[in-house]
């Protein structure tokens, strides 16, 4: 058996590094994170493009230098990032190879239309510029990170803990405890679960299933980052052309995962520099050579295709204007602490899910349409599922774009994300003249934002009872949601945090 290509080693190491960063991005006893996973986005020119669309010239900051350099190197070397580094690409290589082996899929069918990814790139860019920010939904790094966060890791964790529990109950608790210690670093704390876990999984499974149709289907036909890098790759002076030694055996074209080797020279917008053509050629006939950049390489998007895509994106951007649901945002949509004002937040958020990954209480969940079409997979704080931990300020540290700003110690504790109110129709002291006070107990501010007074109230039988009746002191409430989270009533809480921010108009417009 041939030793694996050097590319496989590089891919493996980088994917492992990505997983390591992912697992490391959690509360480990320190309020400041050292190597958060969002660092990978520093390399992502598509995220940079989204940031330019959102903030204009302000985006040209040193933080994005690496993304600029990646574009530059792609213009010299081609799409090496896709073939060698992209963790989603590696995951698809691995998953796709497995799927194809198991289902013995015949691969030599038709290649998917490559122009789709270009259409997505220009369409989404146009929509984003016109106020419907959806580039991040299709960013491959975002897609992988949020998939890991929202369903892959939680499912792995549930499986591992189910197994450990089974071992423990079958009479080997000591062995299970030992395994727990060994597996500790890759397990989640608690049992994470997320809104949209099913839909997120479906999207990922769909992309993986496309591998049965063609290897790297996503990368060649859909990925807008791939399309962007492909545009840069066309400038590359390196061409994988057939030399005179070529015996016309088509082995290179058969091995090429993207179909780039169908043409001669290989299509550098599609070629991911995997080097399979050279390695598979029995005569050493296909190797990169210097040539003049050919801007009109085969498979290049036509001007008409680009314009049509952009027009499509512009039309898409009109959809929110005609959706009645978008006239007013839900009153219960809360954003993470430190989030920029809503419009800016939505346009800068690239839907990577890093904030959801790092939130220690599992409070942040992807939205579907609750915040509008342009808010898909943006994080919202759902107090009933998890509250915002008073002294924690991790989400602002992992946001790759600054959609969630960094908060200092002391500043976080004063950051208001909403305000709590009682639903007196359900709350026990009001409804049954029964003492409860769980919300008051957990309120973290000092003095507490939930005050109470002993009052005589009628219970449901008409009997007068002295009961502690709570109220929200709005000037102290920061909307962290621990009250709603801990409210002991089943289902919906009797105290709820709304988006309204007392003393500020910004939550109303």
């Amino acid at each position: 058996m041939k030793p694996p290509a050097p590319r496989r080693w590089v891919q493996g190491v980088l994917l492992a590094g990505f997983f390591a960063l992912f697992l490391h991005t959690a509360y480990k006893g320190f309020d400041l994170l050292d190597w958060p996973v969002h660092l990978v986005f520093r390399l992502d020119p598509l995220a940079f493009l989204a940031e330019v669309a959102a903030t204009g010239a302000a985006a040209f900051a040193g933080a994005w230098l690496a993304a600029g350099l990646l574009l530059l190197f792609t213009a010299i070397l081609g799409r090496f990032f896709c073939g060698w580094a992209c963790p989603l690409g590696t995951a698809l290589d691995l998953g796709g190879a497995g799927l194809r082996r198991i289902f013995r899929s015949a691969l030599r069918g038709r290649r998917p239309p490559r122009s789709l990814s270009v259409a997505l790139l220009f369409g989404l860019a146009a929509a984003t510029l016109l106020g419907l920010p959806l580039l991040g939904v299709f960013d491959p790094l975002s897609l992988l990170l949020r998939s890991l966060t929202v369903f892959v890791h939680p499912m792995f964790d549930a499986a591992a803990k189910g197994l450990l529990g089974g071992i423990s109950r079958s009479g080997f608790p000591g062995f299970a405890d030992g395994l727990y210690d060994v597996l500790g670093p890759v397990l989640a704390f608690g049992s994470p679960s997320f809104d949209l876990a099913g839909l997120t999984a479906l999207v990922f499974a769909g992309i993986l299933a496309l591998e049965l149709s063609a290897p790297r289907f996503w990368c060649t036909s859909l990925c807008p980052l791939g399309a962007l890098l492909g545009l840069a790759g066309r400038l590359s002076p390196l061409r994988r052309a057939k030399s005179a030694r070529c015996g016309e055996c088509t082995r290179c074209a058969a091995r090429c995962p993207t179909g780039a080797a169908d043409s001669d020279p290989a299509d550098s917008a599609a070629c991911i520099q995997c080097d399979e053509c050279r390695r598979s050629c029995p005569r050493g006939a296909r190797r990169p050579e210097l040539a003049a950049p050919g801007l009109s390489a085969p498979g290049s998007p036509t001007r008409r295709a680009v314009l049509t895509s952009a027009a499509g994106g512009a039309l898409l951007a009109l959809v929110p204007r005609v959706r009645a649901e978008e006239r007013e945002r839900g009153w219960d949509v809360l954003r993470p602490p430190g989030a920029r004002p809503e419009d800016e937040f939505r346009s800068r958020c690239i839907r990577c899910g890093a904030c959801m990954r790092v939130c220690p209480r599992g409070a942040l969940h992807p939205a579907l349409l609750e915040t509008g079409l342009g808010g898909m997979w943006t994080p919202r704080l759902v107090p009933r599922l998890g509250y915002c931990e008073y002294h924690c300020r991790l989400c602002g540290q992992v946001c790759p774009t600054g959609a969630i700003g960094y908060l200092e110690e002391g500043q976080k504790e004063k950051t208001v994300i909403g305000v709590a109110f009682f639903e007196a129709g359900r709350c026990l002291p009001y409804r049954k003249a029964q003492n409860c006070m769980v919300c008051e107990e957990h309120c973290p501010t000092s003095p507490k934002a939930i005050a109470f007074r002993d009052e005589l109230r009628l219970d449901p039988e008409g009997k007068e009872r002295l009961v502690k009746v709570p109220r929200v002191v709005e000037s102290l409430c920061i909307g962290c949601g621990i009250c709603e989270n801990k409210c002991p009533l089943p289902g919906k809480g009797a105290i709820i945090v709304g988006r309204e921010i007392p003393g500020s108009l910004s939550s109303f417009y």
Partner: protein
Amino acid sequence: MTTAIDRRRFLTRLAKLGLITLGTAGIPGLTPGRARGQAPPRPTLAVTEGTDPAALVRETLGKLGGIGKFVRSGDRVVVKPNIGWDRTPEEAANTNPVVVAEICRLARAAGAESVRVFDRTCNDARRCYERSGIRAAVEALDDRSIRIEHVREEQFEVVDIRGAKSLDRWPLYRPALDANVLINVPIVKHHGLSEVTIAMKNLMGIMGGNRGRIHQGIDENLVDLNSAVRSHLTVVDATRILLRNGPQGGGTQGVKIANRLAATTDVVAADAWGAREFGVDPMKIGYIRKAHEQGLGIADLGQAVVL
């Protein structure tokens, strides 16, 4: 010779094993150690005062005859401090870490096979363990048999509490129930609902489920819980007392430095002593009075032997 086992046979066996495991599962019951109404023995209460918390622990337990009176060689000991909140020791929302660590050390020195420290916290458990200083203090003992660990959801087990008036069935933490010695190490704090929270309420840290649900009728529920799960020894930390904004405080404005510590085998006497340190009459605290009346322990410190 080895017998080959094919996949199909392996899966069948696995399924059978699973069915057997399921079949044997049932809801275990807990019976109170002593029937209610029976007169409890006169409690002995050791009280000390001083600025060195570790010395206070040694001195207090020394007065009771040393920790060896409670912990025997080979015992599995659980130390249950209050680690409920994401607060620093100075904020007096959690048990003093020095007190916790010293109790663990003494228990091991008395021959305990293992000492486990845990709490089902209110705030994020990692933050609570960290910022309370209790993780660091216990790990500084550097003894592999003394473990501070996070509670694991699957180790909560629904238990029938026989003779309970209100809390008749609840998920409780198996390792706490299995311990030979359960040492309850609460801190004296203000509480909005029950006015003061000390030892009986600290035991809520072994409860799973939606604990807020026991706040309605908390007096009866706490008596039921403490009848079913006995604290073999209670060490009340009053080195700092949280007087306001309890039970989690915030800042040091509401914190009184009291430099006192008490220990007793009677959880009710422990609460009565703590309430007095806090500055309230224990018989005016609903759950303490109820516990006294139902014979769970003695809240009238006049009846106690105070050392």
